[in-house]
């Protein structure tokens, strides 16, 4: 939108909200909203605490392992479903069901199967992220123009070349979109997993801060987490933009 003739980007409105937050906090209108500046101070203090640093390492490690697993299993599964009709027919229903089901209900199962530690969190991330990766990979593979495949075959391409040189690249825009959405879901998975397990990582911290109404720290942690999710999402969007140039003409 334009203000006094200058184009103001949309995300700039978030700054307006931060200012509003500051005002609301200073006026002490709601106890759950301390002044924004207090939150920032709390954030700076927080990152210096070894407990936070430890929690971050735990959280990040579980997140990354879970995501890598989800990507390594999800992409081949999606390709299988995209190329082999039987696999698609049998598995498709389940992938669709799980991609929109309340997966948080399954986390208790993970807790009894994997215990109360990191393994459960990794499993939660894996569970949350994988379905959308499979679906988007499958969509990307199915969108490939058949003549592209026929062209490769007509020039004698062996299977590995077909997959490595054509299919993965042709489906890349959708695969990256799937990874981006999978990352966002993975972050939700790590948070929900930790909230339910409640003795590790950020989940434990959230629990403590909420229970004791230490709002500045709660919001500080929230902002750090939200910022992480958005940054990671933006990074993948950059990658998607790189392959955008051929996405339209496939």
């Amino acid at each position, binding site marked *: 939108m334009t203000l006094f003739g200058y184009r103001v980007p949309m995300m700039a409105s978030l700054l307006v909200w931060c200012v509003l937050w500051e005002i609301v906090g200073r006026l002490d209108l709601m106890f759950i909203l301390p002044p924004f500046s207090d939150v920032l101070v709390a954030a700076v203090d927080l990152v210096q605490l070894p407990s936070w640093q430890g929690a971050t390492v735990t959280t990040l490690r579980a997140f990354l392992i879970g995501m890598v697993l989800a990507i390594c299993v999800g992409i081949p599964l999606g390709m299988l479903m995209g190329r082999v009709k039987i696999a698609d027919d049998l598995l498709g229903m389940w992938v669709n069901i799980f991609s929109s089901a309340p997966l948080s*209900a*399954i986390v208790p199962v993970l807790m009894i199967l994997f215990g109360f530690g990191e393994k459960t969190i990794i499993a939660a991330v894996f569970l949350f992220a994988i379905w959308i990766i499979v679906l988007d990979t499958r969509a990307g593979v199915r969108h490939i123009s058949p003549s592209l495949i026929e062209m490769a075959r007509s020039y004698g391409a062996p299977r590995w070349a077909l997959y490595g040189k054509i299919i993965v690249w042709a489906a890349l825009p959708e695969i990256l979109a799937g990874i981006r959405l999978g990352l966002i879901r993975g972050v939700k998975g790590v948070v929900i997993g930790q909230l339910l397990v409640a003795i590790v990582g950020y989940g434990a911290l959230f629990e403590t801060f909420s229970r004791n109404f230490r709002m500045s720290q709660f919001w500080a942690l929230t902002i750090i987490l939200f910022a992480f999710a958005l940054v990671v999402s933006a990074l993948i969007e950059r990658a998607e933009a790189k392959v955008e140039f051929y996405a339209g003409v496939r």
Partner: protein
Amino acid sequence: MVAGTEVGRTAGVAPLSRNAQAVRLFERPIVLRLVSIGLFAAAWQIAGLIPVSFAFPTFSDTMAAFVRMMADGSMVTAYGSTLQPLILGVVLATFAGVGIGTLCGLWRPGEWLLIPVFIVLQAAPVAAFIPLVTFIYGIGMTAKTLAVIILALPVIVLNTYKAVRNVNGSLLVMSRSFMGTRWQEVFKIILPDASPVIFAGLRLGVAAGFVGVVLAELLITPTGIGDLITFARSRADYAGMYATIASVIALSTVTLVALQWIEVRVFRPEKRGG
């Protein structure tokens, strides 16, 4: 999903052999679904028999527990407690969401101010707020309804906003050429054109609502489905626990499929090609 295609019989084509007929049977979607479910159940049964873990009941045990819990009323009561905040929350989120989304789609300042907030809420793990909500509002309907709303609202707003913004421009020009007023544009063109995507957003909102209510109940209340799950676990009634979880997933799936069916029937996609 993939629909089986049936080759039409043209006059003069000889009837298919037994084998071919069997293959054709397997291409029909309902048969495939049943086979798929059957395989899933079989895999579950085997995993439970191995057993994969001491805490992994077989498919048959789980089904038995389900029947038991339905019979003694515990599951019905639990759902009664869960569905109320879910439906209330979804209804409130729908009205608020469609209203806000339409406003942002039509009014630039509203878009600038509100959409970034909802984009952040959509991408961020707002589940982190649920414990806070329950600490503030207690363990009753209010907290659960709020949990549903904070998870469902962003996706409804964003879908509505996108739909309203991406209305077929040609139709708007056509309306102007016949001297339509702005209100006529909104109600006769923009909203009807946006309605399929708005409804799709609603469906996603319902899915998010399920997540919200289950999570709220798992965390901190003594009622509802979430509590039933935690309670079963604490008594090592794993079959009961799995049965409850499976029922919630099944319910959510059935609801979403029903909504999708409505979406296709009422807002038929082929109608979009005017």
